[in-house]
């Protein structure tokens, strides 16, 4: 074999090597397995994760979690078992709390958010349907203004009305397809832009990753440096 075709084959393999992995298609929502023996009877028994409020001019500092790792099990009044993650606010207002439910491997955590007072009494619920579908996540903003300064806890739990359903998403994927042409004395190589369409179902589940951050609310000055999202930590 002459040198040029061997280089051509090696180059082709190197260029196409990155495209080899294929993930299996997910066919249903993922449920969370709960151990009834570990369930508490009152929300106040669940340790709350502190939600630090950043100042308005700061970048968002997101904390990232896997719900299934953070959640504790609570037994509801009707006897049903509910996994939930509790966050404690510092009572400052006005505040914007941003929750991002990541779409990963065709799964997204279909969360509802309950706002509780210092006595763990329910004040308001934000259902999953109030979250907005984005390219790679579902996002929701909760504003705590003067009227809601009694909010002390946020509880994230699966929204039973949405869990088990699937959303379809159609998107275009651009890629470069390499070509290598052996010619006498060498090779010509390059790449051609090509695209394909991907239609995927996202299964709304009881598990999944999410990130959360709180920041004082104040409208930004037009033209000021935009605040970026940062990861503050993860579990």
């Amino acid at each position, binding site marked *: 074999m002459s040198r040029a075709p061997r280089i051509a084959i090696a180059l082709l393999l190197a260029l196409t090597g990155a495209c080899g992995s294929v993930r299996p298609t997910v066919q249903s929502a993922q449920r969370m397995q709960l151990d009834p023996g570990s369930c508490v009877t009152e929300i106040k028994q669940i340790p709350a994760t502190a939600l630090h409020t950043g100042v308005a001019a700061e970048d968002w500092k997101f904390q990232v979690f896997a719900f299934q790792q953070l959640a504790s099990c609570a037994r509801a009044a009707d006897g049903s078992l509910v996994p939930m993650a509790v966050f404690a606010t510092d009572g400052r207002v006005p505040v914007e709390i941003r929750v991002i439910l990541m779409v990963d491997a065709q799964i997204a955590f279909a969360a509802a958010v309950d706002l509780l007072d210092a006595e763990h009494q329910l004040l308001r619920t934000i259902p999953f349907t109030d979250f907005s579908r984005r390219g790679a996540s579902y996002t929701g903003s909760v504003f705590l203004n003067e009227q809601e300064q009694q909010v002390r806890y946020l509880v994230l739990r699966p929204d039973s009305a949405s869990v088990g359903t699937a959303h379809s998403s159609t*998107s275009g994927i651009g890629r470069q397809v390499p070509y290598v042409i052996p010619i006498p004395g060498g090779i010509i190589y390059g790449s051609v832009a090509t695209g394909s369409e991907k239609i995927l179902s996202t299964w709304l589940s009881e598990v999944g990753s999410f990130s959360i951050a709180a920041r004082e609310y104040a409208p930004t000055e037009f033209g000021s440096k935009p605040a970026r999202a940062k990861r503050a930590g993860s579990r």
Partner: protein
Amino acid sequence: MTRSLIRSLALSLLLLALGACVSSPVQQAYNREMNSSIKRIAVLPMPAQNVRLFVFNNPGYSFGLIGMAIAEANRNGKENWLQKTAADNDFSHSVLFRELFTAAMLERGYELVWQDLDHNNKRDAAGLHKKYSPVTGADAQLDIGLSFVGYAAAGAGKSEPYRPTVNLSARLLSADGKKVLYSDMVLYHNVTNNRSALILEPDPKYQYPDFDDLEAAGADAIEGLRIAVNQTASALAKQL
């Protein structure tokens, strides 16, 4: 002829650049309670634009200026057909958007005042103004950039059908134009695989594997655009 081709190529390069990295405006959710006094909103003028047709990731664009010129000549003919069909079916997306968005906002308790005279007409890639002047007779000003309305395909093959596509960016500012109260991007048909914009799924009834299929659909294809504009207008109103 040459001038028109150069203009067309420039537009295509812009669309290619947009496809590569559609820069969403920084997302800011709207705090309704804190801004409850805002009832009357001035909507800044939107540039008059025609419907577009575009194939993202068209291999033709990979073969230098000659390849691009051939691909562009082909696209141009198809886009001309779409624009003529839109006109024949009395479809103007800016007129329709204005009508539907006004109604959707009225339902949410807002009165819109559409501005005609554009004082600052320089815009960014998302179609939003680069600077703002104060407005009078309104509690806030809303800037809307419809950077693409038309049919787009994710690739050149039959398995990448033409689908109705709308790219919209919006920014709500205080009446003096100094404070940003809301900012986001809405995409009907995520042909560019944007990760952060609000996404609306295209109606599967209006998908055309080939241009011939789109052409055969005629008025039906325009109905697909009406639905796309309607859903985009509703989605934006829902955010405010």
